């Protein structure tokens, strides 16, 4: 026993746990750096970026209104491809959101302390992605003023929705997901809004932050309930986030269409969602980290871990793709076999191979540590994953639909300019909202990052002769 203890000590000494915030920064440094982003004048790049993204968002909004005033005929959808870019974009954006909830909920339950540096931004990204997602089901009905028919409320026709429909489950799943994400995000924001309040120079700013922070005082009798609420929200968000993309996948899996009708869909969709979401977190946070000099808070260790998650979830997605081939072959259903041969060798072969290359091949670069710590390669792989996940949904929805059971009903699908610019417009809306978020709210959870500093531990002893003794005491 004594020998193994001794070897343990040497191992711990040789491989100390890396610090989560680099360069031994103080708590005041964290407040100054994060809150300073909001308090200082907006940098020039921010104005340039938001001018561009807001213009894109504006044109996207124009496309949405053009659709509403003209009708869904302005989209390229037609029988047999009745669901095309609209549902592709919806599932794409919903999937993006999943990484934020994974970071805030599942990693909290797993006590992954590194999450504190990125959870705020990732949760904000979740909200904005779900907002973009929600646009598509709302506008695809054409007559948006009738959208209230999906809600189970009494109406003059005395018609009630079918609660056994996956589309109905989707309405509840996505709206619950959005609401719970907002509550979770705002709860975590309250202590940081209190920090902003106490730092505010002007009376107006102070009053606004006071209202927003509910007059939070940071007493332990408050933290006690706060911690319980946070824990429970994490606990209920975990099954929620897994259920949302499962429910989205039920929209397809419960149908009889070859290429959709598979039991692998729920886990496969969830893994893909987390994969795509982590890619989007990296896409947004790598530039934000450089522009706001957050290298010591959002460190290379964080990027490294996220790249490993990208590799892991990307490999699950790759497994699902290959398993679909196997089931198509082994299931001996000629329609299913045709669907998969057509997927990879039919007229849309380029979409399927882009999907496979971006989602399965490119993340394999992340096996190499040097690549995980290279800005350009990480960014390239995350952009590949963003594109690949959009292609995945396009492949699943459009390719499965464009070859109907009877060849007489076969038809190609081509998007119109409205399709393209509505999607590009939602990217503009998404990035605009994110830019507004980093401008007006603390983008890193200050109180949570402070709580993972070494000196936040009540049993911490400052380094020095006494500190070394304390470390040895813990080892024995």
């Amino acid at each position, binding site marked *: 026993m004594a020998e193994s203890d001794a070897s343990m000590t040497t191992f711990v000494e040789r491989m100390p746990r890396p610090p989560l915030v680099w360069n031994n920064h103080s708590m005041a440094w964290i407040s100054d750096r994060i809150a300073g982003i909001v308090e200082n004048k907006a940098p020039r790049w921010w104005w340039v970026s938001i001018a561009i993204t807001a213009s894109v968002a504006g044109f996207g909004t124009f496309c949405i209104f053009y659709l509403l005033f003209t009708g869904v005929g302005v989209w390229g959808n037609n029988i047999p491809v009745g669901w095309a870019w609209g549902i592709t974009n919806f599932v794409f954006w919903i999937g993006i959101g999943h990484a934020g909830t994974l970071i805030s909920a599942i990693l909290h339950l797993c006590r992954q302390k590194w999450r504190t540096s990125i959870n705020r931004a990732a949760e904000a990204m979740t909200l904005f992605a779900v907002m973009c997602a929600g646009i598509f089901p709302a506008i695809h009905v054409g007559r948006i003023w009738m959208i209230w028919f999906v809600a189970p409320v009494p109406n003059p026709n005395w018609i009630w*929705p*079918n609660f056994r429909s996956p589309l109905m489950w989707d309405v509840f799943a996505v709206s619950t997901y959005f609401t*719970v994400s907002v509550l979770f995000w705002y*709860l975590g924001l309250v202590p940081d809004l209190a920090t902003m309040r*106490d730092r505010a120079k002007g009376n107006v700013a102070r009053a606004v932050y006071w209202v927003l922070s509910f007059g939070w*005082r940071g007493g332990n009798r408050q933290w006690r309930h706060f911690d319980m*609420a946070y824990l429970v929200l994490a606990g209920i968000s975990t099954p*929620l986030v897994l*259920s949302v993309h499962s429910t989205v996948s039920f929209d397809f899996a419960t149908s009889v269409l070859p290429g959709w009708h598979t039991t692998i869909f729920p886990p496969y969709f969830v893994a893909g969602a987390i994969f795509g979401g982590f890619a989007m977190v990296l896409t947004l946070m790598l530039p934000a980290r450089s522009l706001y000099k957050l290298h010591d808070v959002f460190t290379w260790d964080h990027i490294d871990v996220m790249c490993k998650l990208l590799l892991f979830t990307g490999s699950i997605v790759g497994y699902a793709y290959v398993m679909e081939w196997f089931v198509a072959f082994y299931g001996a259903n000629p329609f299913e076999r045709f669907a998969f041969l057509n997927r990879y060798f039919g007229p849309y072969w380029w979409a399927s191979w882009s999907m496979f290359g971006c989602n399965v091949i490119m993340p394999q670069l992340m096996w190499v540590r040097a690549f995980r710590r290279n800005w350009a390669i990480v960014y390239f792989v995350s952009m590949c994953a963003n594109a690949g996940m959009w292609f995945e949904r396009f492949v699943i929805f459009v390719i499965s639909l464009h070859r109907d059971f009877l060849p007489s009903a076969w038809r190609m699908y081509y998007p119109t300019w409205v399709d393209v610019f509505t999607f590009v417009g939602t990217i503009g809306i998404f990035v605009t909202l994110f830019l507004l978020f980093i401008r007006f709210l603390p983008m890193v959870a200050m109180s949570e990052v402070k709580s993972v500093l070494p000196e936040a*531990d009540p049993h911490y002893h400052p380094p020095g002769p006494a500190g070394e003794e304390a470390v040895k005491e813990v080892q024995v």
Partner: protein
Amino acid sequence: MSAASLSKPAFAVIAEFPSAGALYEAAEKVRDAGFRFWDVHSPFEIHGMNKAMGLGKSTLGYIIFCGGFLGFTTAALLEFIPSSYLFPLIVHGKPVNFYTNPPFFPIMFELTILFSAFTAFFGVFIMNRLPRMHHPLFNYEPFKRVTNDAFFLVIESVDPKFSEIGTREFLEGIGGKEVTLIYAND
């Protein structure tokens, strides 16, 4: 200190501590001294502080359970009343009965989560008596640093063991710095 403020009733005595560790050890001593109306204030939740203060687990979890159960019940009524009585639909050749329940579960699940989340969010503020537009602690200017990097221990004057002189001396004795008397608002 002006004469006017001296006439105000005391709200509490506040002491600052240099670190989370010092605050933790001080909290253990205040707990052992038998105070009841006191609190520690910190920029983040200090791990294990509930034990140091002699507080149990938050009861919020039980309230959230009730909220979740209410959500489950709401969903069940929302689904079964229209589907069974108001507008009975036969889907996939299946009427609504005990054996065709499973497709109703997803919505029950979602509303259980939704109601729990609302209960958790509003519960934490109701249990903390928030929102509150002012609090006597904010009369003490250095208290602003509590959301940055400062650690405070507050013993309120409503505590039966409180005395302006004795409590100050006690807090100084356990290592509190800048021990100050805070006055109530009126």
